């Protein structure tokens, strides 16, 4: 029987293959996998609610490196934030806008440069195996572009956050940034990855971030998606943790036409702690999908996952939270919570917690709620003179406030809140 899978070749064959010699073997494997792996459609369970059909309908092109800094890339997207800065436009590092080198004991440079200098040897060029598992990963690997390489030496604390600002501009562009973060033992850093795009931008962002948090180290990662235009944003973060390490990640979708976040964290050493928090507030016909995998492979680790969404208009959302507790992972304490408010009749959410527990001495709890705004609470606020819009704003802030409060800095949390209230007209 004929397969009705969209012919994907036309979609990607016009794209420029990855140009880094250090990634040559990964790119080659990616190209081979593109023919082998199935294109995500509604038929596959993992992509059931986020088929790529709409994205594949339009062939894409690889954008040239920009000349200088485009005007609509704000010099500083977050008021008041004192950070080291790396700027990428369409997957190209804009060196003149970057604070290289950042600090002593910290290696921060374009990924391609790190590859050229032999910092990622052999199989180290790829940690995630994303391109072997997923067609989207293969698409990324075959066309992988530049990104940030951040490495902290043992015991070093980055004194300011690192802001990685990724901007997209142009029509039907295919952008595949690739980042690597290596946290040496007992090191500590806060990283903010800020995604923006110009209002007329269309195309795909297919981003990969690989990270490793060494023994006793701490990495805080804030990812903010604030993309205008019509971007299909596919993101994959793959992070491994050594013993007694802490990894915190906030995935905040402020705006995005179509977003799929795939976050995989694996604990490889005892005493590791993981915090995965996220917020999504799609409107119009936007789509936001968060697929998370928390893999507890060793004893005595903890994880805390909290995702909150409010879905407006005819938007759609997906939350899929997979938690593995392997047989060896005794004394695991894993928590997962996903709360949704479907604000309008046309909106919908598909939420699915998936817990696979093979150890017997563990504490795992999870909860998933889908509801509406509490009319009684709204009336209570209004009965004190607070107007309908302000009352709703208060309730939204209350709902997502605990997620915002856990972000790396108050400035970033405040900016996210400001952008959300401007976008939704709360104040």
């Amino acid at each position, binding site marked *: 029987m004929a397969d009705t899978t969209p012919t994907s070749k036309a979609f990607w064959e016009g794209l420029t293959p990855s140009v880094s010699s250090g990634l040559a073997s990964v790119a080659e494997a990616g190209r081979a996998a593109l023919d082998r792996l199935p294109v995500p459609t509604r038929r596959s369970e993992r992509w059931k609610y986020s088929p790529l059909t709409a994205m594949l309908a339009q062939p894409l092109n690889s954008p040239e490196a920009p000349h200088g800094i485009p005007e609509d890339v704000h010099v500083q997207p977050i008021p008041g934030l004192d950070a080291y800065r790396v700027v990428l436009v369409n997957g190209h590092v804009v060196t003149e806008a970057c604070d290289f080198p950042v600090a002593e004991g910290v290696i921060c440079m374009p990924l391609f440069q790190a590859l050229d200098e032999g910092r990622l040897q052999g199989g180290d060029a790829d940690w995630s195996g994303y391109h072997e598992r997923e067609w989207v990963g293969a698409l990324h690997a075959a066309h992988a572009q530049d990104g940030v390489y951040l490495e902290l030496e043992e015991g070093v604390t980055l004194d300011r956050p690192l802001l990685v600002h990724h901007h997209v501009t142009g029509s039907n562009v295919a952008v595949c940034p690739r980042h690597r973060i290596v946290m040496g033992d007992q090191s500590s850093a806060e990283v903010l990855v800020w995604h923006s795009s110009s209002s007329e931008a269309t195309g795909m962002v297919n981003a990969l971030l690989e990270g490793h948090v060494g023994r006793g180290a701490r990495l805080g990662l804030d990812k903010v998606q604030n993309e205008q235009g019509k971007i299909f944003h596919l993101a994959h973060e793959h992070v491994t943790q050594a013993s007694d390490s802490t990894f915190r990640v906030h995935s905040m979708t402020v705006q995005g036409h179509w977003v799929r976040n795939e976050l995989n964290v694996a604990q490889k050493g005892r005493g590791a702690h993981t915090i995965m928090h996220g917020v999504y507030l799609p409107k119009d016909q936007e789509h936001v999908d968060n697929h998370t995998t928390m893999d507890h492979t060793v004893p005595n680790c903890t994880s805390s996952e909290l995702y909150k969404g409010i879905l407006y208009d005819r938007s759609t959302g997906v939350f899929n939270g997979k938690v593995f507790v392997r047989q060896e992972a005794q004394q695991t304490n894993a928590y997962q919570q996903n709360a949704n408010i479907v604000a309008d009749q046309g909106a919908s959410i598909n939420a699915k917690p998936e817990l696979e527990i093979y150890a017997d001495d563990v504490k795992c709890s999870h909860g998933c709620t889908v509801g509406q705004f*509490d009319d*009684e*609470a709204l*009336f*209570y*606020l*209004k*009965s*004190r*003179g*607070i*107007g*309908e819009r*302000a*009352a709703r704003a*208060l*309730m939204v*802030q*209350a*709902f997502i*406030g*605990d997620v915002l409060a856990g972000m790396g800095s108050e400035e970033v949390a405040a900016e996210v809140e400001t952008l959300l209230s401007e976008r939704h007209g709360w104040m």
Partner: protein
Amino acid sequence: MLTIKNLHAQVDQTAILKGLDLEIAPGEVHAIMGPNGSGKSTLASVLAGREDYEVTQGSVDFDGSDLLDMDASDRAREGLFLAFQYPVEIPGVSNLNFMKAAINAQREHRGMEAISAKDFLALVKEKSALVELAGRLRDRSVNEGFSGGEKKRNEIFQMAMLEPKLAILDETDSGLDIDALRIVSQGVNAMREAGRSFLVITHYQRLLDHIVPDHVHVLSDGKIVKSGTKDLAMELEEKGYDWIKEPAV
């Protein structure tokens, strides 16, 4: 202050208020008593602007304005306050932010500037002392984890903060122990003044020992069937409501 004429209201096609008349002058305290299901809380809800109550007939004049033409927040800004029978818990919204938003909404409505942080805190300190509301309760999320008595004290605290022209207390005494009843009543009495009126809705006479009304009305089957002084409340306490429901001899 408030003139209700021939008020009819229904919920889900069920008529509850069936021609209610009531006149409250500035500075007066009126009590409405009545058996369960007589329409007491419906009256409070209709006056406060709850949306699922439909007014089918009649008029309500509030200090010269058509009350029924305003939405709930405008009624509050104009000086109407409802102390809820069941105050709502709103996790994540701090009691103080809530009050600040409410006060500023009212001030904006009156063409005033937003209140300064200093003035606001001074106001909070003064008004919370009135109902012996401890700081930790003020600083928490709205009513979250409050006991029944704490919730009712929080209602009176909010009333004191907003200084309404007309306050409706909807069974504020329900679920209160003697001490809480005393504190709540003290808070209300401290606010009695010439320009402020109260409509106290209650099932029991005991609240009226503390908040002494000028007028007492008995509501039955959606109408006021008897009015009198505070002595009427005593009589009701003795005889129950049944004698009221029977046709006058």
